């Protein structure tokens, strides 16, 4: 009787772990499949002309340079607004804020901000930045809209990175005659920086790939030239992909997949940078 019970337990455990392993493998399949599929379908479209030329023939041929440059500008623009604001908010929440009604309210706001659908941000950006503040459909308005969407990611990852720095470092710094800010500046921030950067890149990466928030705020269907001021509208990779996939009849599929591939490489490239920073910092960490 005892023997059978034990055997059963072992069998159950094996079955259980096999099932869990299978599930873990299953999660990898779609990611790998997407990448391979886009790579195979999109690779034939990639050429120097595709990357550096302007669209021709109703966007059915030529290159996607304006979209690439536009996404680059939007990402930079988003970084300009969301990074300083997000990091400052994270420092406040992690280092200075007492646990009171105000900070609880801020936290709830951040969590809810993260849950808002991106198209709602788009509409909000249209109302506030494009119309009310009269920025027009522009890189500026789109960047600001994307910034609001990105803020929760940056704030929460940066706050987590700051909190991960051991508390005693701060106490020691104060006990050696430092102000709290000196401790933050000289110890906490440098130690948290890799974690903060990782969060920043992940947040920006999401912004770079979004369509809905820029739809009404800054994205242009087609532009014959590159934008030359923040008040210009711009083409962008995700929106361009949407346009050539739904709005242009007789679109050669390889142009669509080529565009998707460029966007994917852009985003995965940022991801790779974030992962590299994180693993390098882990190896060097002295606590």
């Amino acid at each position: 009787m005892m023997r059978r019970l034990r055997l059963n337990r072992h069998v159950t455990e094996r079955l259980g772990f096999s099932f869990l392993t299978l599930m873990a493998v299953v999660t990898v399949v779609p990611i790998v499949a997407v990448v391979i599929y886009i790579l195979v379908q999109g690779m034939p479209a990639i050429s120097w002309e595709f990357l550096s030329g302007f669209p021709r023939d109703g966007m059915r041929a030529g290159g996607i340079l304006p979209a690439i440059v536009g996404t680059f500008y939007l990402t930079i623009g988003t970084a300009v607004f969301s990074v300083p604001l997000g990091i400052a908010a994270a420092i406040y929440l992690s280092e200075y804020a007492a646990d009171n009604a105000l900070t609880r309210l801020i936290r709830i706001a951040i969590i809810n901000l993260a849950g808002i659908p991106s198209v709602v941000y788009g509409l909000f950006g249209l109302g506030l930045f494009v119309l009310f503040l009269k920025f027009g459909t522009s890189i500026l308005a789109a960047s600001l809209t994307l910034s609001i969407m990105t803020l929760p990611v940056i704030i929460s990852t940066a706050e987590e990175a700051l909190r991960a720095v051991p508390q005693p470092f701060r106490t020691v710094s104060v006990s050696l005659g430092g102000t709290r800010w000196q401790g933050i500046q000289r110890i906490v921030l440098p130690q948290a920086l890799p974690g903060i950067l990782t969060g920043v890149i992940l947040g920006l990466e999401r912004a770079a790939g979004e369509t809905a928030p820029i739809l009404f705020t800054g994205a242009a269907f087609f532009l014959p030239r590159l934008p030359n001021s923040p008040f210009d509208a711009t083409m962008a990779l995700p929106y361009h992909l949407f346009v050539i996939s739904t709005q242009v009849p007789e679109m050669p599929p390889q142009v669509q997949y080529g565009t998707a591939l460029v966007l994917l490489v852009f985003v995965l490239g940022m991801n790779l940078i974030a992962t590299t920073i994180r693993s390098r910092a882990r190896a060097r960490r002295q606590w």
Partner: protein
Amino acid sequence: MTDKIVIENLSLTYSDGVESLRNISMGVRENAVTVLFGPAGGGKSTLLRCLNRLNDLTEVRTSAGRILIDGENILDPKTDVIALRRKVGMVFARPVVLPMSIRQNLTYGLELAGEKRKSRLDEAVERSLKLAAIWDEIKDRLDDPAIALSGGQQQRVCLARVLALQPEIILLDEPTSGLDPISTGKVESALQELKKEYTVILVPHSVQQAARTADYAAFFLQGELVEYDEGKSIFTTPREKRTEDYVTGRFG
């Protein structure tokens, strides 16, 4: 000999309602090791943290009384706490080396204070490491990360880091609780050297250490100062029954 520190009717309650110090009055002699001992929760660490106002970082509900250092009440809100903390250095129970090189650990406090001259910094590094009895062990690897040192070496670096600021008072909160006996011995003998120049206040990690190191000793029990006397009398002929029970190991 004069009292470097005079504590008058000090009481303190933390914001979670824990009463930590109850009407403490005592004087602390200059150039001596004064030991604060007793079971956990007696208020020893709280008292230490009052002396350099580190309790400012904690939520304190009420505090009353005065602490005079060289005649000045440091609990006065107008006190320059930055200057106070340079004058009253602190070594913690667990060695906390900052995530930087040994040298940078030692110069950290001076740099915060605005010292930039390399000669002054180098001089402070050497002087304080010698005082903390660790110079010979690590002088050739001052630019290595401090975390690479053993626990005992780290704790002496922490002591040296305090000494680099040339404080007048050194507070040590169970500085040897995580150390092996040999490292403990080195720290203890460093303290005997240090008291020639500094006022040393030590919360020991055992009664034995208290007895070994104390010139003066104060027995704390649940926020109360039970007995305060010269080390040689308190550990051999305590006046209070509660002190005797603790010293002889009947509780604690």
